[in-house]
């Protein structure tokens, strides 16, 4: 995209350009493209997400990429870590709020709607910064397994296969070419890993989030291969 050098429109946070754009929000979307990618695939009775842990330094523990929201929901983000953590925290609080009111786990769409509104609110007020993060939310609830994607505009997408972060277009290209309706779990995991590798190669361990039955579980790739049989 074009970065306008001396444009006065990219400074106030919630101000339109004459052609109807919100530059701060667009810049936030750019930030997402620097984040390490996340890929998610949904099948008939399951949904999975994969991401590579960031190994920053041999002396440091790898930074976890997939976060538990509740027993039945997980999320992984691309973009500024602090912004992702804020979103995950919001999701966790909303999930527990629902449990307090209903004594039942929250459904995936309600969490995503809440996060979408939260992110959107940063595009409407001055003095705030749109969150530089996109999020993939995977989970299981009474009506099925779900994949959702959120971006800095507060846009909510759901689908059968999603990717966010660095080179996500490459991952999406592979997903488009090879995704099949009602894929077996093993094939879906394999496709997700290959799509992730298209976007980012690396040596660090891959984390897998699996929504199966009533729960969402975070695990290593080896464990995932055993679990989803």
């Amino acid at each position, binding site marked *: 995209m074009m970065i306008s050098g001396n444009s006065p429109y990219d400074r106030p946070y919630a101000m339109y350009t004459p052609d109807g754009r919100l530059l701060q929000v667009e810049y936030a979307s750019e930030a997402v493209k620097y984040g390490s990618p996340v890929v998610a695939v949904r099948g008939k009775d399951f949904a999975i997400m994969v991401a590579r842990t960031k190994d920053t330094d041999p002396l440091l523990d790898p930074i976890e990429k997939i976060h538990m929201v509740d027993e039945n929901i997980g999320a992984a983000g691309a973009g500024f870590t602090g912004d992702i953590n804020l979103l995950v925290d919001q999701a966790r609080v909303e999930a527990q709020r629902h449990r307090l*009111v*209903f*004594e*039942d786990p929250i*459904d995936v*769409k*309600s969490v995503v*709607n809440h996060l979408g509104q939260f992110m959107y609110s940063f595009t409407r007020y001055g003095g705030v910064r749109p969150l530089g993060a996109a999020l993939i939310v995977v989970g299981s609830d*009474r*009506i099925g397994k779900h994949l959702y994607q959120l971006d800095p505009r507060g846009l909510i997408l759901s689908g059968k296969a999603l990717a966010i972060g660095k080179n996500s277009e490459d991952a999406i290209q592979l997903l488009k070419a090879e995704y099949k309706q009602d894929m077996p779990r093993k094939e879906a995991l394999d496709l997700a890993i290959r799509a992730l590798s298209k976007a980012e190669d690396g040596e660090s361990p891959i984390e897998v989030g699996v929504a199966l039955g009533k729960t969402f579980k975070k695990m290593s790739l080896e464990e995932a291969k055993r679990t989803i049989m």
Partner: protein
Amino acid sequence: MTTIVGLKCVDSVVLASDSRASKGGMIGSKGVKKIYLIDETKAVAIAGQLSDANYLINLVKAEAKLMEFNRGFPLTVKEVAKLLSNMLYSGMRSYAPFITEMLVAGVDDSGPQLFEADISGAVTDENFTSSGSGSPMAYGVLESTYRAALTPEEGVEIASKAVKSAIERDPGSGNGVQILVITPKGAEWHNMGGA
């Protein structure tokens, strides 16, 4: 005052009530409605202060509809009962209790459901239950005739007998029996008449 009864049957729930509204020692109304639909497959039977109960039901109906629009599928019966009980509880805790007891009944994904929520916000899961001044008489019938795996027709018969027994001996209950049968397909009213 009042007699209300609820019982679980096979794939269905039955709610029954009398039709009398009492005003002190007087009969305030002879044809009052005590069973309210929340949606096509959920309903609440009320005992106690009519105004309090109506207020809570209106709020829960609105909340249930909003939640269904937002998340794309309806509330469970338990969720409706919890919404009501949360308001009852906060009422009790703020020294302005809602003077009402409610039977929340319906059919959802997990089958027929029946809950009772009282003035304190306590919710209990029941197979059959009764509330109101006529409940001791109604319980006599329910305890001796209720069994698992009743057909809806049998349920209607038992519920109607329970409310009628209460009407015979409880001065706070009377003026005919109203019955609602809820199945997965929807709710059906039975008016047993009488004054």
